[in-house]
C-alpha cells in the first residue's frame, strides 16, 4: 500500500510538473494540497490531459507558440482586465479547520525594542509627574473591606464604626490605582506609600435608618422581626496627591 501511495504521488507530481508548462495552468496555480486524499484524486484522473483546462502533452510545439502569444497577449490582457484572475502566491493554503493551529498567531517580540519602549513610557510619565502637568487625579482606594473610586471633594458613606473622632484627618493608605487624564499608575496589587497620598476628614458619625429584618414561613406560624440600626461614618476626601518622582 505504501508503494502504491508513493507511486501515485509521483504520478501526481509528474502531472503537475507537466501542467506547469501549459498556458492555462500557469494562469491558475494549482494549489499543492498536502492532503493525501486530494493527491490521489488528482492522480486518478490520469496522466493524459483529463485535468480541467490542461491542454495536451502530445503537441510539443504548442508551448513555444503559446510563449510567443503570451508575450503579446499578456500585456494586453493586463491593461484590459479589471476582472483578471489574480494568482495567489505559492505558499497559499486554503482556510480549513486544520490549516492553521487553533491558537492565535503571535507576533515576534524583540526584547531590546520592548525594553526601549517601556523606558520611553516610564520617562514620559515621570516627566508629567515632575512638571505637575496633571489636573484632577482619581484613586482606587481599599478601605473598610470595600474598594472606592475616589477624587478630591468626594463624600464617602461607610457602613461601620471608625475609631477616629469627627474632624480628624485620616490618611487612606491602601491605594490600588491612581490616574489622571494622561497617565494611570496601576499597582500590583498596591502602590507604594511614598508614591500616593490620599487624605480624608471624618465629617459625621451617625446611625442608619432602622431597617426591618423579617422572616416569615407560611403555614408554619413562624415569624421573626428584628430592627437593625447600622453605625455609619461619612468621610470627605480632601486630596489625592502623587509623588513627583517615580522611583
Amino acid at each position, binding site marked *: 500500500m505504501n508503494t502504491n501511495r508513493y507511486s501515485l504521488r509521483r504520478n501526481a507530481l509528474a502531472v503537475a510538473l507537466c501542467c506547469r508548462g501549459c498556458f492555462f495552468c500557469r494562469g491558475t496555480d494549482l494549489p499543492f494540497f498536502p492532503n493525501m486524499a486530494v493527491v490521489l484524486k488528482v492522480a486518478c484522473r490520469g496522466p493524459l490531459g483529463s485535468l480541467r483546462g490542461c491542454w495536451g502533452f502530445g503537441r510539443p510545439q504548442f508551448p513555444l507558440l503559446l510563449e510567443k502569444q503570451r508575450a503579446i497577449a499578456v500585456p494586453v490582457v493586463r491593461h484590459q482586465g479589471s476582472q483578471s484572475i489574480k494568482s495567489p502566491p505559492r505558499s497559499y493554503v486554503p482556510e480549513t479547520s486544520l490549516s492553521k493551529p487553533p*491558537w492565535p498567531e503571535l507576533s515576534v517580540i524583540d526584547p531590546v525594542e520592548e525594553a526601549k519602549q517601556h523606558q520611553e513610557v516610564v520617562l514620559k510619565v515621570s516627566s508629567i509627574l515632575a512638571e505637575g502637568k496633571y489636573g484632577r487625579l482619581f484613586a482606587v482606594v481599599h478601605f473598610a473591606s470595600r474598594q472606592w*473610586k475616589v477624587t478630591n471633594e468626594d463624600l464617602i458613606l461607610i457602613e461601620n464604626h471608625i475609631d477616629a473622632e469627627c474632624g480628624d484627618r485620616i490618611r487612606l493608605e491602601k491605594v*490600588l490605582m491612581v*490616574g489622571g487624564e494622561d497617565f494611570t499608575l*496601576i*499597582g500590583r496589587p498596591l502602590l507604594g506609600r511614598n508614591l500616593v497620598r490620599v487624605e480624608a476628614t471624618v465629617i459625621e458619625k451617625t446611625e442608619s435608618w432602622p431597617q*426591618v429584618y423579617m422572616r*416569615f414561613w407560611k403555614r408554619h406560624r413562624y415569624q421573626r422581626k428584628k430592627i437593625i440600626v447600622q453605625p455609619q461614618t461619612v468621610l470627605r476626601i480632601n486630596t489625592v496627591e502623587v509623588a513627583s518622582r517615580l522611583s
Partner: protein
Amino acid sequence: MVFLTLSHWIRSRGPDRWWRVQEVLKHARHFRGRKNRCFRLAVRAVQRAFVYATKGRQKKRRVMRKLWISRIAAGTREHGMKYPILISNLVKTGVQVNRRVLCDLAITEPRSFQSLVALAKARREEGLRAALGDGKEPPGVFSRIVQSH
C-alpha cells in the same frame, strides 16, 4: 347629689390600642386599596412587605454584581477582548481591582480601562508564548502515526 359609682363601672380595655394599630398602619400608608386603611388587611400586607425587603437586600448584591459584570464585558468587547480573559489575566498580573470599580472605570475613565485591557492582552500573549515554547517537539517523543514527509 353626685353619683360616684358610675365612673367605677367604666373599664379601659387597653389604653394604647390605637398606637399599636398606628405602628402597623404607618408602614402601609402608601399601599393601594383598603390595605392602607384597614388593620386586618394592612397587617398581612406589611408583613409581606418586610419579608420582600429583607430578601431584596440579599438579592440586590447578586443583581449589582451581575450588572457590573455585564458592563465590564461590554467595555472589553469594545476593545476587542472578552470578559473572562480580562479577569483571568488581571488576576495573573496581580491587579486586585474589583468589579464594581472596574465598571466605574469603564464608564468614567475610559483611558484607564483601555490600559487595563491592554495589560491583560499583553499578559495573555506572554502566557501563550510561554506555553508554545520553541515550536519544536521535545526530544525522544515518538508516535504511531508515521510521517511520510
